[in-house]
């Protein structure tokens, strides 16, 4: 398991936090891959070879590669996959598959075990003979990529189902097609989960970490809060620390992701003159050690209005957000404004 369980992430409360909420809009294109059943609540799933049905060397290499692909490409807090001769999960190279028509087959029994069956090279099917690309030095057209098929089966182990092809706008959005492509059709050798596979896994398991990219197959609203310390009345020439808190909208339909902090993003501090209309980017806020927190310390000599702005990367499925506005006044002992607040007076 990479990172902490996002459900246990906590966000520190900050006095005076003002939130700006961007509502979730429906995503266009391929939806997150369907999934069902309970999820694994473990950091690692270990597999062994089923005794008597051990895969040949070339297939083992493909399986190990797929296990690594799965571990690094879910973008989610999913268990990692690794080989262990005593593992609870097993993988078999066998023609003994409950469905005559499958080339791969997964059985998931959360939380105790799982099994994956892969048909042998040369197995006859109605349409012809099953060929695995990895069996050959020069794989022929029409072979199945064993690494992709194993990754696909691992997807089933992680609770993913098959995509409804009528909803797919880009084949590469998912590897969970009911009928994977053979060489050399589009996507025949994809070696990572598609963005919509990762999206569903993030919705079910949470993001791998607060700084993990949110799949672009999602379209999640974000909350951006801003607070000022030590307050909004600052002594002339003293330091003001503005802190922003960025998280996934707690009210969005983001399943387990809702309310999770977002780290490592680009959050800008903006300001404008008091009463002004145009905002200008002042500085990019620095990431805090605390998940989802950003800060900037300024030496303040003039009153301004401040806000934070999050501009989402096009590579992830988050909406932009801006915080509410904080007006900073200067507490100058030499000059008092008509409303009782101090104003800047450089010649006091």
């Amino acid at each position, binding site marked *: 398991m990479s990172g902490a369980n996002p459900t246990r992430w906590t966000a520190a409360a900050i006095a005076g936090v003002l939130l700006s909420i961007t509502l979730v809009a429906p995503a266009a294109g391929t939806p997150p891959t369907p999934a*069902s*059943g309970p999820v694994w609540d473990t950091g690692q799933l270990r597999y062994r070879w089923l005794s008597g049905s051990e*895969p*040949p*060397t*070339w*297939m083992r290499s493909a399986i190990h590669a797929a296990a690594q692909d799965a571990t690094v490409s879910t973008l989610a807090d999913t268990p990692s996959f690794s080989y262990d001769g005593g593992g609870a999960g097993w993988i078999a*190279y*066998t*023609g003994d598959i*409950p*469905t*005559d*028509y*499958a*080339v791969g*087959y*997964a*059985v*998931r*029994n*959360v939380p105790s075990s799982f099994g994956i069956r892969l048909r*042998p*090279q*040369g*197995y*006859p*099917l*109605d*349409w*012809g*003979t099953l060929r695995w690309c990895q*069996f050959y030095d020069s794989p022929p057209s029409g072979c199945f990529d064993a690494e992709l098929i194993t990754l696909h*089966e691992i997807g*089933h182990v992680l609770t993913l*189902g*098959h995509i409804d092809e009528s909803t797919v706008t880009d084949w590469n959005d998912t590897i969970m097609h*009911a*009928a*994977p492509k053979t060489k050399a059709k589009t996507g025949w050798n994809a070696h990572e989960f598609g963005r919509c596979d990762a999206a569903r896994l993030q919705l079910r398991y949470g993001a791998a970490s607060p700084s993990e990219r949110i799949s672009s197959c999602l379209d999640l609203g974000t909350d951006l809060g801003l607070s000022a310390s030590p307050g909004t009345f600052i002594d002339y020439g003293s330091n003001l620390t503005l802190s922003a808190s960025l998280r996934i909208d707690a009210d969005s339909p983001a399943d387990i992701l809702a309310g999770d902090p977002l780290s490592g993003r680009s959050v800008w501090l903006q300001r404008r003159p008091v009463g002004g209309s145009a905002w200008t980017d002042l500085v990019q806020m620095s990431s805090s050690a605390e998940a989802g927190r950003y800060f900037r310390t300024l030496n303040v000599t003039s009153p301004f209005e401040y806000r934070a702005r999050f501009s989402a990367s096009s590579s992830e499925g988050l909406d932009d957000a801006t915080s509410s506005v904080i007006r900073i006044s200067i507490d100058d002992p030499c000059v008092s404004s008509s409303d009782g607040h101090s104003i800047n007076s450089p010649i006091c």
Partner: protein
Amino acid sequence: MIGAGWRDRIGPPSILLGSALILTAAIPAATAVVSRPSPGPVAACPGSPAKAARAAQRDGVQAKDVGVRAEARITSRGELTGRILRLDQSDEPAISISLPAESFVSERTGDAVVYTRSGDGSGSEVHIVNVETGCDTIVASPAQIVRSAILDRSGSAVYVHSVTRAGRGDAGVERHDLSSGAVTTAVPPLAPSAVTGRIFATELRWSTDGRALTVQSCGFASCLSRVLDVASGVVATIDGRGQGALIATTSHHLVAFAPCPGLPCSVIAFDIESGAGELIAEDALDARIDTRSAGGNVLYITTADGKLEVGL
């Protein structure tokens, strides 16, 4: 049709309900070997194929302990080159039959096992072997590539599913009468279907009452079934998109998994007449039908939460 007396002779009908085994081998048919290491080759088969088939079924009365195994032959590089049909007898040396990759072995019915073999460029053979005597008879020699075959419960005919030699398109199911040798189309070839796409596998399975033959054709993701009423010759097609691997067919229902990529998976009962599906259970890890229950067919479903019994 088949009465209880017949069932008593061959043993519980449930032995017919499991998935049939698809066999494979790379050796050409001409080099196949039927051997009994000692005392010698398989016994000659007296009489006609029909007689041999019926004899095999009659021998089932004795219910001798003969293990039937189909073992894959896989090279060290992982290539399936064939299968060995092995008949392990408790008091005699085993009989082994080498089969090519393109072959099939049925489940045992009484003492009869049907197996098929097809070679490159040559015709196919459909055999019935008496597992007790070792008598091995060719009962059909279709020109197409035979994918599977199943003996009817009276031992009077064998139903053979084939694909075409050119293009391996579905060639339908033929009935080979073992007495006359007459060949008739039982279930016509399946035209390409949007439901199934390219056909990966076709399974032949008798209904629990033995009156209907289910021919289930599956693509990568979903299946289509045609249920042949043997007496009338009427074929009912169940082609909804919600059908996966076949569990069993009763007199009124076809019970199948949903088109899941694995397990757990929902279990659905389709009305054979209307084709309408009804969800029986969700998240099943296993589903088997037992026809021996006094109250009729009972479907046993295992889920993570326990077992479920459904009368059908």
